[in-house]
């Protein structure tokens, strides 16, 4: 069985990013490319741009935002019952990955303390609610995480922080391989993973539309017209 990027990326969020970075022709080509051939990572691994220097705080806060995205993704799939309906092998996989991502959020939040950014509001557009869409999106998400960590870890100034991020990177790489194994595609698709810059990943995350504006549920200075 060979999955294509088009099948995984049904709302074409990732393909939009590819189109922006490499043009529509490249995106069209990749739409039907098999995941097993490493097409997804190839698409994600746009050449790192010569971005301005980023601080450790910026990297950690983006890492927190991204880990929160992942943790919320697994937590929602679990709490709406999608994970509970999966086969025991898959269920175990989703639960373990969820536990890991929540542990990552806790520790990065603790490190950042009062400098930790506010939790965003997530909208997963229903992909956590069916087994098929959940597992396929997981593949893309874990691959993206690996590319992100590979890109930003060498930019961290504090060597102890670099060492810790390498610890996260290797675990995320195992997650990516496990997710690929779950959807029966090649766990290690390429001989070399190319890193992505922070800006590249920010763009990719923005294009998923998983992070959205918080609903406006409080109004000030609006007089009630309830029955009283």
């Amino acid at each position: 069985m060979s999955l294509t990027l088009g099948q995984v990326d049904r709302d074409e969020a990732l393909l939009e990013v590819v189109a922006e970075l490499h043009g529509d022709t490249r995106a069209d080509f990749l739409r039907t490319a098999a995941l097993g051939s490493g097409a997804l990572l190839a698409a994600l691994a746009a050449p790192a741009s010569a971005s301005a220097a980023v601080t450790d705080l910026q990297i950690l806060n983006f890492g927190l935002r991204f880990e929160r995205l992942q943790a919320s993704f697994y937590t929602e799939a679990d709490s709406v019952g999608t994970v509970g309906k999966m086969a025991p092998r898959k269920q175990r996989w989703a639960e373990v990955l969820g536990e890991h991502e929540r542990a990552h959020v806790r520790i990065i939040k603790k490190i950042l303390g009062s400098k930790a950014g506010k939790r965003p509001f997530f909208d997963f557009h229903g992909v956590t609610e069916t087994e098929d869409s959940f597992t396929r999106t997981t593949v893309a998400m874990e691959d993206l995480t690996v590319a992100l960590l590979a890109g930003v870890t060498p930019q961290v100034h504090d060597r102890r922080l670099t060492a810790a991020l390498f610890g996260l990177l290797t675990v995320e790489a195992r997650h990516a391989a496990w997710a690929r194994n779950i959807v029966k595609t090649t766990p290690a698709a390429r001989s070399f993973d190319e890193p992505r810059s922070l800006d590249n990943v920010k763009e990719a995350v923005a294009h998923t539309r998983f992070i959205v504006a918080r609903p406006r549920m409080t109004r000030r200075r609006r007089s009630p017209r309830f029955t009283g």
Partner: protein
Amino acid sequence: MRLTVFAVAALAAGVGGAAIGARSGESTPGPSPAANGVPNPVAPAFTPGRPQPLPRSAYVSRWAPVRAATAARSAPDPRARVVARVATTTPEDTTNIVLVLGRRVDSAGRLWVRARLAALPPRTGWLPRSTLGGYGTVETRLIVDQRRLTATLLRRGRPVFRARVGVGQPQWPTPRGEFYVRNRLTRFAGATYGPLAFGTSARSAHLTDWPDGGFIGIHGTDQPQLIPGRVSHGCIRMRNADILALARLMPIGTPLTII
């Protein structure tokens, strides 16, 4: 082969570590060479703790904002009867939300959500998942008892707040049933509603011509001496100190049971 030999020799000499230190320009101490000349690993700044299973709670309720105006249907089928129209905003100009009760995938693979609606009479309906936004969750429930004239807020099933309330007069009774809290209004002019008001999905069946459709609110009052009692047009009134205390505890999306 020659390259491999060079790489191994470079690593053994600690060249990698020296290069990192030079690039970063940081004063953090480098790894001390071990007995065989290979540098020890740098101690990481943090290590994530033991993973913890997701806590299971029987008290979680889920709500979702309405992202696109839609029709709620009697079944998860685009041909099913329309039971209500669902807007993206409330009459108070806040994001409209629905309380999520269940979900189903139809024969065409479309995802549907069964939701409690702000409709008259109170009802549930099926909405396409694509018309709703991301889920929010709450672990609270507000119970208004019209016989005892009390409001009790439960968190994870345990009472965390209780207050005496005013409810509808016999000719304008407060509707009974299952509803939810859908917005909060603050800092408005006038003292009639007190300092703060919650909007709910409940609607009066007797005041349908009321401005904006006769929605039931939970709010403060400028006549605290009337509480507890059957004094309102259907709204749930509290003393101002009580509504402010409730506001600190009750998130939007909380299910509301009126008995």
